[in-house]
């Protein structure tokens, strides 16, 4: 109010004040019409409107959280042009206010852009300006209840958005807090809506609201619309129709409605358990794919060459750090960086692998215990090296946008993109490795050396070189696995230790020296764990898996796919 008085000339201010007071009770109506009330000069109204808007934003800047919620709820009902910008900005944490004293008081801006090149939008005047730094500006803070409110508020505007996806999101948002206001908006939208998905969503929302109706017919029709919907809110709401009060009397008076509701619930539960099973299956496959990825390099070094390589986990870690470094080098192309990181990690880990083989392991062939101890020592050295060079803190590998998010099939079944990509990636890596082992001369020589070293040498294979290359290949694959794992878990000096046990388990279970064994072994261990986990918990699931493998190995010493032929006796 003070600001209005100060800014207008004296006579103007009195008139404006009168207008303001007259306008106040009328504004609700005016807003519904979407235009200012006639009867006074347009520019004055404009002035008062912008001033009121500016005042509210200024108050928003420093208000307490409950007060902010009130302000947002008031703002969202006004049809002022900049309201959506301001609310969406606040939601995204992009709304700033000026701290320094200015003649016109606190100013609020929607800030976008990055360091050195910021764009400031004044939602009140809709004017933009450029700035290099945000000195003197402070972000307006939000908390969870406020953001929940803001989402609802922004959804009201998004209902008119051009993109159907945004509109569906908006309807979903409005469904969380259905009040008569939201219903009015949805009904209005339903008339003009052309997209089938959005129409269906709105119908469901309206039906949910209709369940509150006192007319049993209306409730029945609503239930018809809702049957087959999987959404949690639908399920919970329909479930409530079946509830009874303390004396055992059903809360829903109409028997037909109750019958219909119990049918609907049965159908929903059936479909839910079906999709729940699909979900578990996918979790199992995805966990299995991680196990296979981690183990597949070991299937080469341990499985084919017979080297107990305790530094395998650290080779995975080196791959993960490579992916971190590549991202550092290409900060503006996170999506591409991941793709670049795959060959880079293969090279780096492969090279380290070759060094380990040439430097240590080759002197220890045929001495498994010494190899175990030596490679364990190497793993400690590598860990401490990384700790020294990169610090012991975890490093952050960003997930590219195309890998984040959910592939949503319906309300209860969705799979995460990164898991899906990693599953596919695992199959690609496996296929490539299989091709290398079975369709190239290197693979042929590798198999020849591992099956009968002396004979292979007699045939002119340089077994030394093949050993180094094989170890490098296995290590390189471990590095590639590291890139995939860097997107799932923490990139730190200890990350390798988390995978070494699992990797050995998979290789031993699958059958030493058999790539297919590693694939099937890893996948079945993953599936088994995930099928058991919901019933017994994660700690017990892990124990059960270990017990199962111990028992299995007792029965079948060679694992799932034992090696046949002469090399089998050689081990």
């Amino acid at each position, binding site marked *: 109010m003070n600001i209005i008085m100060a800014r207008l000339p004296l006579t103007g201010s009195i008139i404006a004040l009168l207008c303001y007071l007259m306008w106040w009770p009328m504004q609700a109506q005016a807003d519904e019409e979407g235009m200012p009330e006639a009867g006074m000069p347009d520019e004055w109204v404009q002035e008062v409107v912008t001033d009121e808007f500016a005042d509210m934003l200024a108050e928003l800047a420093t208000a307490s959280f409950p007060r902010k919620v009130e302000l947002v709820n008031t703002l969202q009902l006004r049809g002022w042009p900049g309201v959506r910008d301001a609310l969406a900005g606040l939601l995204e944490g992009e709304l700033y206010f000026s701290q320094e004293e200015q003649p016109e008081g606190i100013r609020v801006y929607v800030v976008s852009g990055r360091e050195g090149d910021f764009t400031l939008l004044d939602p009140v005047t809709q004017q933009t300006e450029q700035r290099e730094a945000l000195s003197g500006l402070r972000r307006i803070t939000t908390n969870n209840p406020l953001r929940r409110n803001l989402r609802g508020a922004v959804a009201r505007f998004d209902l008119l958005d051009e993109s159907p996806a945004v509109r569906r999101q908006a309807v979903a948002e409005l469904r969380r807090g259905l009040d008569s206001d939201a219903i009015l908006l949805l009904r209005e939208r339903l008339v003009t809506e052309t997209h089938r998905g959005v129409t269906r969503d709105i119908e469901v929302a309206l039906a949910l609201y209709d369940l509150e109706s006192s007319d049993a017919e209306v409730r029945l029709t609503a239930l018809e619309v809702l049957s087959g919907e999987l959404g949690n809110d639908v*399920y919970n709401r329909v479930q409530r129709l079946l509830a009874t009060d303390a004396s055992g009397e059903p809360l829903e008076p109409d028997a037909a409605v109750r019958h219909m509701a119990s049918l609907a619930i049965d159908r929903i539960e059936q479909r839910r358990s079906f999709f729940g099973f699909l979900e578990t299956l996918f*979790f199992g496959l995805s966990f299995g794919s991680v196990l296979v990825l981690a183990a597949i390099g070991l299937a080469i070094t341990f499985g084919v060459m017979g080297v107990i390589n305790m530094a395998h986990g650290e080779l995975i870690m080196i791959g993960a750090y490579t992916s971190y470094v590549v991202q550092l080098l290409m900060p503006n192309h996170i999506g591409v960086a991941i793709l670049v990181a795959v060959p880079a990690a293969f090279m780096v880990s492969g090279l380290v692998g070759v060094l380990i083989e040439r430097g240590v392991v080759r002197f220890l062939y045929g001495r498994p215990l010494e190899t175990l101890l030596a490679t364990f020592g190497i793993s400690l050295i590598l860990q401490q090296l990384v700790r*020294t060079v990169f610090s012991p*803190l975890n490093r*952050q590998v*960003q997930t590219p946008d195309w890998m984040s998010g959910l592939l949503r099939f319906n309300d209860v079944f969705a799979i995460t993109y990164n898991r899906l990509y990693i599953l596919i990636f695992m199959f690609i890596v496996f296929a490539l490795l299989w091709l290398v082992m079975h369709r190239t001369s290197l693979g042929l020589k590798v198999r020849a050396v591992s099956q009968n070293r002396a004979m292979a040498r007699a045939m002119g294979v340089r077994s030394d070189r093949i050993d180094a290359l094989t170890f490098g290949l296995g290590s390189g694959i471990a590095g590639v696995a590291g890139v995939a794992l860097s997107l*799932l878990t*923490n990139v730190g000096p200890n990350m390798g230790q988390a995978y070494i046990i699992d990797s050995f388990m998979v290789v031993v279970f699958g059958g030493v020296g058999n790539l297919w064994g590693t694939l099937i072994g890893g996948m079945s261990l993953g599936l088994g764990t995930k099928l058991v986990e919901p019933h017994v918990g994660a*700690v017990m699931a892990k124990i059960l898996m270990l017990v199962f493998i111990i028992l299995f190995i007792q029965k079948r010493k060679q694992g799932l796919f034992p090696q046949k032929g002469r090399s089998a006796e050689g081990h």
Partner: protein
Amino acid sequence: MKAKSLISKIAGVCMTLSAAFGMTATHADTIKVGVLHSLSGTMAISETTLKDTILMLIEEQNRKGGLLGKKLEAVVVDPASNWPLFAERSRELLQRHNVDVVFGCWTSVSRKAVLPVFEELNGLLFYPVQYEGEESSRNVIYTGAAPNQQAIPAVDYLMNEMGIERWVLAGTDYVYPRTTNRILEAYLKSQGVKDEDIMINYTPFGHSDWQSIVADIKRFGSAGKATAVVSTINGDANVPFYNELSNQQVSAEDIPVVAFSVGEEELSGIDTRNLVGHLSAWNYFMSIETDQNAEFIKNWHAFIGDTSRVTNDPMEAHYIGFNLWAQAVEKAGTTDVDKVRSELYGLEVPNLTGGTATLLPNHHITKPVFIGEIRADGQYDVVWQTDGEVPGEAWSRYLPGSRDIKADWVELNCGNYNTKTGKCSGQNY
């Protein structure tokens, strides 16, 4: 990585190594400060920072002229995240190096491991990390939060301010989460929360596949009642947990997660853009604007030579602990453990968030409690705080066995006095 910083790091490692072997030049006229933090192994991720914090505080104190006219000298040892080694190293510090005070430990297991050594040799340990309580040793000063200074206020906030009715207590399977969750469960039930509205979930150390658990949490949270996760998940398991949350699009507005072991430093390894709004409860946040905090951050950046490094709650605890000890030494005029200890009671030093920390007779301190929401930049917005400082309680009043036990080293000279039987249990802690 620039060659120069690499060299300086290698030099740093050599220095800590030489310190670890006790080869630093020792002068008779110095006061020795033991630093018992893991510099290698799993816990190095958290503890290295605390070692640096103490070194910084010592450097500052020496610049001010030291204590009692003597310079302070740090004796750094590396217990390598190995619990038995913690006991050996603390014996080495107390017997071979004759340190006057020790700042150290992170995990509760390591603290339990060194406890007998400190009590046998009458040392003085400042322990800077939030922990499960149920302990008060004559020889340990607990500068981190007890459950009533972190867990209980956080649950109160969720219940009263956010209207949470359904609770997931998720933790790593070891002593701190188990005890904290026992206290929380008892507390929630005393507040009228029903059994079916509490889900308790434990996971192994370093658990990395969170798909099923996050899906379970989503399912548990879809019953139409406001649901929150109280997380005592420790260390490295947090990164895949938060990643899975953001991938499965569990937003803080639907199911907020409040964590007791995740702070600025842990977040620096996570992409936080999708975690905005998830909560942490601490007694300090780097983003809190006070003059002391600004200066502390400035000094830290200058000392560590990297302005991107963050500060966190256990660092503040060391700051408070160090200042408490320094003041007590000045007052006592000696570094003798018993004399320093008797000067410590009731001492007040400023904390970094604008209030003061007072050392209580139960060896805990008073602390303000803050609830912060994660921001996109990995820092926290404080959304709630206690009116003043909350005194730390060694023994929880919500657990049946611990309710009657009192710790008071001034009047009772006992850390576990049973008010029912009127006896001190005889153990020192």
